[in-house]
């Protein structure tokens, strides 16, 4: 047992181990988002379908376990990300006076920590408004969602968050493949654009929901 | 001084076995009681330090660069020879031996060269095992290419970076020993004194190039693997830090310096573009396989190359050497280029270059096929000169490349100072008067990995060496001498920079002791060099202090040694009245103007003994005899 702990510690404190953990949890979050998106599509079907779906989820006995798991994944991802980033800042104590990119960096990769932190703020708001509340009237959770989306600042906030998500994943998805060493002369050139397309799709698909609720949905 | 080469008895093939059998062994448990200092981390030095560490000796390894991986062996491009006979084209140890002796124009020791050829195969095995990514064919086996001076394909290579890959292999072996603690590597250290105790080499003083402090290290033996001294010519294909310092300190402490005038000039280098130039870049010799060398027939013709019609071009190599054409050996090609430039037919702004033209090859094989072979060289040339060799002919000129001369060593690689060994390009080596392409890497690795471990044990086990520590007063004296030189240089406060005076020295050497040498010129230079040396010590400007990272001081210290070495080279060139290999005495040539050897008068090694400041050094000779490779006059007509 002791040996196993040593092995885990060796992995979990090394630079590559930590970034693989960040990548793994990141990909798990992507997985969650895919499911979340699929479920959320029911929004377009109307109140009944959406509430039904929500109640179905709430009735699962395993839900608390899954939610705790999700929380753990989030926390792990965030901890690893903060730890790595903190070290990376300290690895160059004296900055360059003149700095020019040779073309490797992208907006997405350069802003990972900022988009990530923004997403964290978003999540706190999102979960406290959509998850940690009891819907009082019969409009249920559907009503809550649509009500929030009537506010322009909220919609704008969501659109910003989803842009951040898109940026985060524009680098994150392809980066996670690289982090796990998925590399092949024929596959690598595809992974990059595919990751980017996926990020744009996810952000756009989520982004349509507040817009739809605000502009198109009329009770 | 007695020059005893200590060649083992017995037939040529068995001499090396014989020596390894005779040599006393050091008991494995006792090896860690022996401290060995290895100066240099090139192929020879890193190889020696690594293999001595593996054996269990306590090794100290010094180099000038910030990492052992940067020794100038890194720059070798072409390849390394070995007698594997993989291509089944009739190669053998015997043939590699014969080619090397002949290539050296019969001025090397047969026994040494034979041993080199024998060891060559083990080098390939060892380097492959170390992870050197040699080129391979589709069956996964090692590939060979052909190289100058041989009719067989025996050159192993790793793209155009063979030296780099071999050095990184040796460096990795060294790093493994460093990790084990048996070798201590000290980079950014320059050896500035050799320390003798009771007539034996027992340590070195080096300058810590970061702090400027003089540091003393004691040991039971000292191995110098400090590379060549081509930079005495200022411009050469050598790296900036290549220097003669370590060997020169040894010379001044009694080690004989052999054949200093044997320098190799490589025909295909990018020509000098101005006085700002700090080094010359080699372009692979392989270019001559498809490029045609020419100059305009008319002296002073300044038309652009495209506008010179075919019948006004002089393809001088093809004209003079119809059977070998553009593929004559290095020394012959270099001299021919000099001849046409001396006639005023040189091209380019400086008029000191000749064309190497790919027009016909491109017309014949197509651009794609030619690029396949030389694409990266074309790009490199284009990048440096801003001229595209696919459109206009390349311009090339010979440049100093390698020094065959060096500290005299016996068969065991020991100099005339007991306990002082010399390896690699720094010794006077197995290449005679001219080195074949791809043979220096072979020699460095043979010396370092395979020869020194055997012969050093013979010395250490065979002698009673008392304990000497760096506290010994001999070290204090050496430190004092080194410090005095530093302080003197700092105090001159003159008007010329070290690089400036070095440039002038190089110009003199190139002019009078370069591709062609004659009595009048050598005498003239012999008069001028001491004047320049005097000027150096009176008029050099070195800023900063000795107790600091001071590159100007480093440069000045190296230049000071070159001033003295230059004189010795000139003397040696003057005394050797024959032409042989890279040494071309204009007085000694055949009626057609080719180099003419004088075997009756000069079939020997000339080894110079220092006699103190102000006295002329004494020339000793070690006669050479050729029983297996019979001397013949080279001809490439």
């Amino acid at each position, binding site marked *: 047992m002791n040996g196993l702990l040593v*092995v885990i510690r*060796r992995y979990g404190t*090394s630079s*590559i*181990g930590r*970034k693989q953990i960040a990548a793994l949890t990141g990909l798990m979050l992507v997985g969650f988002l895919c499911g979340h998106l699929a479920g959320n599509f029911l929004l377009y079907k109307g109140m009944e379908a959406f509430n039904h779906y929500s109640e179905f989820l709430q009735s699962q006995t395993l839900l608390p376990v899954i939610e705790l798991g999700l929380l753990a994944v989030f926390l792990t991802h965030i901890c690893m990300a903060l730890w790595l980033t903190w070290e*990376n800042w300290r*690895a160059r104590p004296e900055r360059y006076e*003149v700095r*020019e990119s*040779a*073309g*490797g*960096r992208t907006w997405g*990769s350069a802003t990972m920590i900022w988009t990530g932190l923004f997403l964290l703020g978003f999540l706190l708001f999102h979960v406290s408004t959509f998850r940690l509340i009891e819907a009082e009237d019969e409009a249920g959770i559907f009503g809550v969602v649509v009500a929030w989306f009537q506010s322009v600042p909220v919609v704008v906030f969501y659109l910003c968050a989803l842009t951040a998500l898109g940026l985060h994943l524009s*680098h994150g998805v*392809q980066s996670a493949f690289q*982090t*796990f060493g998925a590399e092949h002369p024929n596959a*690598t050139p595809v992974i990059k654009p595919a990751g980017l397309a996926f990020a744009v799709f996810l952000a756009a698909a989520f982004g349509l929901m507040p817009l739809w609720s605000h502009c198109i949905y009329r009770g | 001084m007695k020059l005893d080469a200590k060649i083992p008895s017995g037939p040529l093939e068995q001499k090396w076995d014989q020596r390894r059998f005779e040599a006393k062994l050091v008991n494995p448990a006792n090896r860690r009681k022996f401290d060995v200092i290895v100066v240099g981390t090139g192929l020879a030095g890193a190889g020696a330090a*690594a*293999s001595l560490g593996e054996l269990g000796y306590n090794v100290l390894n010094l180099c000038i660069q*910030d*990492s052992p*991986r940067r020794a100038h062996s*890194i720059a070798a491009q072409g390849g390394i020879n070995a007698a*594997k006979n*993989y291509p089944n084209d009739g190669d053998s140890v015997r043939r590699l031996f014969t080619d090397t002796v002949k290539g050296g124009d019969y001025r090397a020791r047969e026994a040494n060269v034979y041993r080199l050829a024998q060891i060559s195969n*083990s080098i390939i*095995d060892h380097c*492959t*095992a*170390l*992870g050197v*990514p040699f080129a*391979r*064919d589709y069956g996964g*086996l090692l590939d060979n290419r052909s190289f100058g001076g041989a009719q067989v394909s025996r050159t192993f290579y790793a793209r155009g*970076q063979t030296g780099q*890959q071999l050095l*990184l292999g040796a460096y990795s072996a060294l*790093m*493994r020993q*460093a*990790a084990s603690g048996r070798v201590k590597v000290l*980079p950014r250290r320059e050896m500035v004194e050799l320390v003798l105790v009771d007539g034996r080499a027992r340590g070195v003083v080096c300058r810590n190039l970061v702090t400027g402090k003089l540091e003393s290290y004691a040991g039971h033996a000292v191995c110098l693997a400090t590379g060549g001294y081509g930079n005495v010519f200022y411009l050469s294909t050598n*790296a*900036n830090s290549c220097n003669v310092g370590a060997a020169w300190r040894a010379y001044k402490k009694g080690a004989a310096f052999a054949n200093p005038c044997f320098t190799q000039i490589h025909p295909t280098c990018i020509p000098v573009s*101005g006085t*700002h130039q*700090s080094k010359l870049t080699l372009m692979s010799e392989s270019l001559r396989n498809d490029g045609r060398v020419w100059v305009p027939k008319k002296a002073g013709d300044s038309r652009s190359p495209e506008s010179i019609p075919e019948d006004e071009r002089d393809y001088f190599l093809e004209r003079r050497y119809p059977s070998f054409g553009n593929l004559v050996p290095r020394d012959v090609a270099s001299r021919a280029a000099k001849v046409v430039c001396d006639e005023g037919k040189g091209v380019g702004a400086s008029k000191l270059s000749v064309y190497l033209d790919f027009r016909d090859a491109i017309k014949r094989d197509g651009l794609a096929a030619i690029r396949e072979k030389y694409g990266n060289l074309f790009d490199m040339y284009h*990048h440096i000169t801003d001229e595209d060799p696919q459109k206009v002919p390349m311009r090339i000129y010979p440049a100093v490349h390698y020094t065959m001369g060096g500290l005299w060593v016996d068969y065991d690689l020991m100099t005339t100072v007991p306990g002082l060994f010399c390896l690699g390009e720094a010794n006077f080596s197995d290449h005679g008067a001219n080195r074949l392409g791809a043979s220096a890497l072979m020699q460095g690795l043979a010396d370092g990995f395979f020869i020194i*471990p055997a012969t050093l044990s013979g010395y250490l086990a065979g002698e009673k060496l008392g304990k000497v520590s760096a506290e010994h007063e001999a070290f204090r004296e050496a430190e004092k001498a080194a410090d005095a030189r530093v302080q003197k240089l700092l105090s001159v406060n003159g008007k010329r*920079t070290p690089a*400036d005076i070095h440039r002038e020295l190089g110009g003199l050497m190139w002019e009078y002791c370069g591709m062609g040498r004659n009595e009048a010129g050598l005498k003239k230079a012999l008069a001028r060099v001491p004047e320049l040396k005097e000027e150096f010590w009176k008029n050099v400007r070195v*800023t900063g202090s000795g107790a*600091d*990272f001071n*590159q*100007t001081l480093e440069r000045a210290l190296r230049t000071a040694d070159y001033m003295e070495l230059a004189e010795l080279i000139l003397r040696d060139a003057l005394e050797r009245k024959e032409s042989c290999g890279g040494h071309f005495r204009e007085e000694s040539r055949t009626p057609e103007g080719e180099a003419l050897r004088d075997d009756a008068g000069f079939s020997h090694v000339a080894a110079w003994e220092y006699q103190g400041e102000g006295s002329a050094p004494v020339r000793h000779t070690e006669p050479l005899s050729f029983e297996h490779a019979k001397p013949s006059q080279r001809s490439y007509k």
Partner: protein
Amino acid sequence: MIGIRLNLRIWRQKGPADAGALKSYEVDGILPDMSFLEMLDVLNEKLILQGEDPVAFDHDCREGICGMCSLVIDGRPHGKDEGATSCDNRMRRYKDGDTITVEPFRAKGFPVVKDLVVDRSAFDRIMQAGGFISVNTGSAPEAHCVPVPRHKAEAAMDAAACVGCGACVAACPNASGMLFVAAKVSQLALLPQGAVERERRALSMIKQHDLEGFGNCTNEAECEAACPKGVKLSNIARLNREYLRASILTPAQ
């Protein structure tokens, strides 16, 4: 006077413990054929004659192979010339009156020694941790005992081309040395000779890399763009794979 005049802003720092700053200089007579280092030579020759301390910078081969030169020119490690080391940059790209800023490689793992000179001995220590194949002189088998598929030998050579200059660290926004480590781990993992020790090598080289204070790779790809020897990012992918594999397969000692 022939040649162009340039304004230089050069990082001057007396020693590791001293504070540094950019200092301005002027040079003239700079010719298009000069290399960047030869331009600095011109400046230094002038400074020496003025009795000023010349600018310290590392260099040796001056032909792009030793990996000693290490300048950040206008924010780009090894300058803008493609596939070139600092010494291989030419002055052709500059116009009369241009201003050029020259800084040292900056990273915690590469402390400044003086001016533009940094201490890269961390790379040697990473190599000592496992960048080798454990074979003693004399014990190697005949070279042809082990064939190596050509494409693997070629890929190993691509990785082996690394000159250990450290530009990857200098360019990396995280000052990570991953490309350097990856090049060596890849080279030796691709060859059957090196495969025997691959787990140990990956684990200990990364351990040392982290200890030296280099940052973590977040796949920024600036290193690949700065590398003068074209070492590819795919090597980092391979290193990541090797590391994961080694982490699983290697028991705790």
